[in-house]
């Protein structure tokens, strides 16, 4: 930004020119981002019915009623939000670490100077990122259908594959069930948070959601690989040579030298991953619309469906703001955490 010291007319004009230059962007951002956000904030605390403008007469302020219904109730609204948050939580917990680790691994592989055809592999790994997510979802629905290629391949190794996108069983429940632990007489079943029992909270992602998790890892690893490659290329070869001279083996060089130097980019990748995964919408809209048995319902999709399908606009807006709050809190927490711990110690 241009310094705005009021020293003579030349500088004054310079400030004006600066403002003129940023004006188009400021107006566009204000009109298409700031104003809609403020309007949505108003809708979330109003009883707007979706008919006519939300600032018209007859639209009343209802305080935190919409939020209370979602967070404090015992009804369907609370249960749906609880289910959506649970689903998305497992999605985030699995996708973010996996995609970060795989992206880093791919970046290190294709960054090797001795590797042949690394241009080809870089392009191949990045390709899913530039493909439309709708196209990939359709491909995924085909691959993971009951009699699709994935189950064909599994049958070669005598595994009877599940009916992926129709299977609502949580994978942790399946594993626990194998050890004879079920929801019956389980102490967790009595606990209750956001309308969902403790036993349901530990269900893990459903088989259907697992297919989406694999998809997210497949599509975004390439994107983040690009960021890691850029960061790796910033590291001087001398650093690694010095470590070699000191007698560090390959693993020690990676863990004590390379990874700490990548810390800022790891932070970026995890933050971007966290934000992106909490907002998963398009895959759900195109693929499953929340089913089977609501196990792929996510807050972003719930917000859309509350507003557009059920005409409950205030609830839809309130869900969007609850999601916003979750993302902000998690990002701050994660920043404090990564900022404090030294990677590799």
């Amino acid at each position: 930004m241009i310094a705005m010291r009021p020293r003579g007319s030349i500088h004054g004009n310079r400030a004006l020119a600066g403002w003129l230059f940023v004006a188009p962007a400021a107006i566009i951002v204000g009109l298409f981002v700031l104003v809609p956000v403020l309007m949505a904030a108003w809708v979330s605390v109003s009883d707007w019915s979706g008919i006519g403008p939300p600032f018209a007469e007859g639209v009343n302020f209802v305080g935190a009623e919409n939020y209370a219904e979602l967070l404090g109730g015992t009804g369907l609204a609370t249960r749906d939000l609880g289910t959506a948050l649970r689903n998305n939580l497992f999605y985030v917990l699995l996708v973010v670490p996996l995609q970060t680790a795989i992206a880093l691994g791919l970046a290190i592989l294709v960054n090797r100077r001795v590797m042949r055809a690394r241009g080809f592999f870089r392009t191949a790994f990045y390709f899913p990122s530039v493909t439309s997510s709708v196209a990939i979802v359709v491909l995924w629905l085909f691959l993971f259908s009951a009699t699709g290629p994935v189950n064909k391949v599994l049958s070669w190794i005598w595994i009877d594959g599940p009916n992926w996108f129709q299977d609502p069983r949580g994978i942790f429940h399946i594993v626990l069930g194998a050890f004879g632990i079920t929801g019956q007489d389980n102490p967790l079943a009595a606990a209750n948070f956001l309308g969902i029992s403790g036993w349901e909270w530990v269900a893990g992602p459903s088989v259907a959601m697992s297919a989406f998790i694999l998809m997210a890892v497949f599509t975004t690893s390439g994107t983040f690989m690009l960021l890691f490659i850029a960061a790796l290329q910033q590291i001087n070869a001398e650093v690694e040579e010095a470590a070699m001279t000191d007698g560090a083996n390959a693993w020690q060089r990676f863990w004590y030298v390379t990874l700490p130097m990548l810390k800022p980019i790891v932070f970026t990748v995890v933050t971007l991953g966290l934000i992106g995964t909490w907002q998963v919408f398009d895959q759900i809209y195109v693929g499953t619309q929340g089913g089977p048995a609501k196990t792929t319902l996510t807050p972003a999709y719930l917000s859309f469906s509350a507003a557009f399908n059920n005409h409950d606009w205030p609830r839809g807006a309130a869900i969007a703001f609850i999601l916003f709050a979750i993302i902000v809190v998690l990002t701050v927490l994660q920043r404090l955490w990564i900022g404090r711990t030294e990677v590799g110690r």
Partner: protein
Amino acid sequence: MTHRFPRVPAILAASALLLAACGSGFESEAPGSTPPGSADPGSSTDASTPAEPGADLTILIGSSGDAETNLVNDLVAEWSAESGVNAEVVVASDLNQQLSQGFSSNNPPDLFYLSTDQMAAYAATDSLEPYAESLSNADDFYPNLREAFTYDGQFMCAPKDFSTLALIINEDMWTDAGLTEDDIPTTWEELASVAEQLTTDERVGLAYGPEVQRIGVFMAEAGGAFIDDDGTTAVVDSPENAEALQYVKDQMAAGSFSYSSDLGAGWGGEAFGNGLAAMVIEGNWIAGAMTNDFPDVNYIVAELPEGPGGKGTIQYTNCWGMAALSDNIPGAISLVEHLTSTESQLAAAEAFGVMPSVASAAEEWKSAFPEFAAFIDGAEYAINLPSQPGTGDVIADFNSQLETLPATEPETILASVQQSLQAALDDQ
């Protein structure tokens, strides 16, 4: 680096999406409005067309395909030529969303397809013109279709057509199993026994989607209901409904009934066409799918068997919703009269396989499509699914619980749905 990352742009975009609908303050383009070149319905009262015919009409439809689009276009053009009113048909890509945007920007289409559950939501905010009683053919509509579109005692909008569910039987599998026309099941016991006979390693006897929109027929046949007659009390957790779900659950455990999704099919018709099920519960839309995708499969359509409570099926219908804000209500009413006339509806039946919503067309329809008579016979006893505002969520929740029916007690599911449904009814 660490200080710069996008500040949750997609959340903002989501909020913007929500509010794209409240753009009336800005000069927003509402998808429901007319494309450039034709007059805007909000400003064309002082018409450019000759004084008498009235303002232009915009009609928003959600079309099943070219056959439907072309037919509606032809019918509307016919009426336009007669009345002198310009009318434009817009095919929606996402009907609910485009309708929402039209209403929130105070610029809705004049006429539009409207489902029963959406009807209640719009009627509750006085957005609909309750015109249907004033139609010249108002009494010709089937009584339970009128009931589906009645809100607060007012017949809101004219049913444009309807569908019912029936039992679709694969003829070749039927005869191969040594069954004859006399064996077509008329009771639950007979249904269970023929389903068992038709079940082999490769297929099940009967399949249906994992949703109350299909399984609900058993609840109707058992004499169960969702809401009592005065529409204020939920009656889902009745012994009749429990009996129906238990019947379904038992047959599924025996392996002769199955969810189409468990067979790897997107819907019943797909399972049926691919030979994964010998019988399915589907509506008359299956005819089009069979002709297009599985022309080699021979099938019979029979009425659903009687349960302990008698005959039962579910009907689905849409109406011609009319915006209260329309500038040419008399014109729109006259257009609906044309669109719902016996001739127009028979043409629609011919073109894309729907059933006419007026009783006067029934006989002609039956003689034109004798093999589908079971569908229209269902009109007499078909029930409507709940459509009060807020019940859509409850039905969706019911469906999600039905997916776990094989492992859950019917009473548990019904008790949970009862509670949610009563809460939704109390909210009104």
